[in-house]
């Protein structure tokens, strides 16, 4: 799940400056995060209208990151889209760019900040668990990922800053190395800790290839 957060409303108003606006939401991640589902798109519509910004229409893409599906769905809305001066996209950074591939001549405003790839722990409770590093090595760490969950991405942790199982940068963060240690101890696999884990091959990251 791509976790997003809606931008501050006042910042959005500044960005939009002048309407009219067409609003686009997303049926998947942004719906689950309550940042760009139907409910949020409609309340955004209401809030903008209160600020005297006209809304020409809205649509929920299924999902926003699917170019071919977007093309089909947006086709039915082209008349109301054309009347808009700004397109507000309530989806992740990918959704914004997929929309921009289709709507070329109108300014597009991202309505959300894209935060991370994470787990849905409970409703509205998300945890970052993966950094999309391109080469999964969780088998070495008992299915916990220190690349994503240690703020220093240490592969031979923990560092000297761990205290009572909490991370040095915040007592709100569990030290993932403390968790790995306790888990391996329970399983009688502490010998795994003795291995020096080699520097990571960051070239496996898709950063350098862009497409697959």
């Amino acid at each position: 799940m791509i976790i997003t957060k809606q931008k501050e409303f006042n910042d959005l108003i500044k960005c939009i400056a002048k309407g009219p606006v067409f609003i686009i939401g997303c049926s998947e991640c942004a719906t689950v995060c309550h940042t760009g589902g139907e409910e949020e798109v409609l309340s955004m519509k209401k809030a903008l209208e209160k600020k005297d910004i006209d809304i020409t229409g809205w649509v929920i893409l299924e999902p926003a990151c699917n170019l071919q599906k977007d093309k089909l769905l947006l086709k039915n809305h082209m008349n109301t889209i054309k009347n808009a001066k700004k397109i507000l996209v309530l989806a992740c950074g990918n959704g914004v760019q997929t929309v921009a591939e289709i709507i070329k001549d109108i300014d597009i405003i991202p309505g959300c900040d894209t935060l991370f790839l994470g787990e849905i722990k409970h409703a509205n409770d998300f945890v970052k668990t993966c950094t999309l590093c391109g080469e999964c090595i969780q088998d070495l760490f008992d299915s916990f990922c220190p690349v994503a969950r240690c703020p220093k991405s240490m592969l031979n942790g923990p560092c000297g800053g761990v205290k009572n199982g909490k991370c040095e940068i915040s007592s709100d963060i569990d030290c993932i190395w403390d968790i790995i240690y306790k888990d391996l101890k329970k399983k009688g696999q502490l010998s795994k800790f003795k291995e020096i884990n080699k520097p990571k091959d960051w070239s496996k990251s898709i950063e350098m290839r862009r497409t697959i």
Partner: protein
Amino acid sequence: MSYRSNLEKILSENKFAITAEIGPPKGSDQNKIKDKADILKGYADAFNVTDNQTAVVRLSSWGGCFILLKMGLEPVMQITCRDRNRIALQSDVLGATANGIRNILFITGDHQSFGNHPSAKGVYDLDSIQLVQVINDMRNKGIFQNGEKIIAGKPEVFIGAATNPFSEPFDLTIDRLEKKINAGTDFIQTQSIFNLDKFNLWMDEIISRGLDRKIHILAGITPLKSIKMTERMKFHVPGVDIPDNIYERMKKTINPLNEGFDISLELINEVKKIKGVHGLHITALFWENIIPYLVKESGLLPRT
């Protein structure tokens, strides 16, 4: 008027400046730098020591610069954004200036995938324009990037940057140079020049925008040593523009060293006549001992 460095003094006095590149070794043997420096002493005003160029691990730029300082030569340290975040970048500038390095050239750097450690993680916390602005604020306003005051000594540094007159789109390369000037760059060293027509067009635009009066421009010169090197630079090195006539000359000659030398000499003699060019930056890859001959033959140094 006091100057931060000899290079700044020479450029400020409207003298034609020469900088030369010294590539540091893949190892810790300081003699590799000393030997090159001995050959080049007296044939340039300042000497660039590259910072892990093409992302290949070598003796560090500041380490090489200290060796030059001890020999009484003026270094131009290079710093790329590839390997350091803003904490290390600012700290290294303080450390370098504290030890007498006064010229520093700031570049974004070749991507790590081009080098000999392609599995490395690139940093790129800042880009070269942002970095120049950060260092300029440290120097002029006495503040760090976070806005905090520098407590004990602003870094007195003559700020350099690089630019490529041959990259695309043409207008954007000049807009970007203007951004570098506005960020605080004092001098630039250009990509090696082989295509004089294109360089002349670029300089015309520089002059029409009045940029040559805002920044010192050192034109890049690289002597071609062999057909192999010419082909590698023409076909494989991004951003290099070797026109067909130069390529043909290197291809046909039976003496590539002589031909490469002649081509460089011709380019130098043309480039030094171009209005707005304030000096040369000579990069002779693995052929540093040719630089004294080029400088003498073209009558650039010693100055009369």
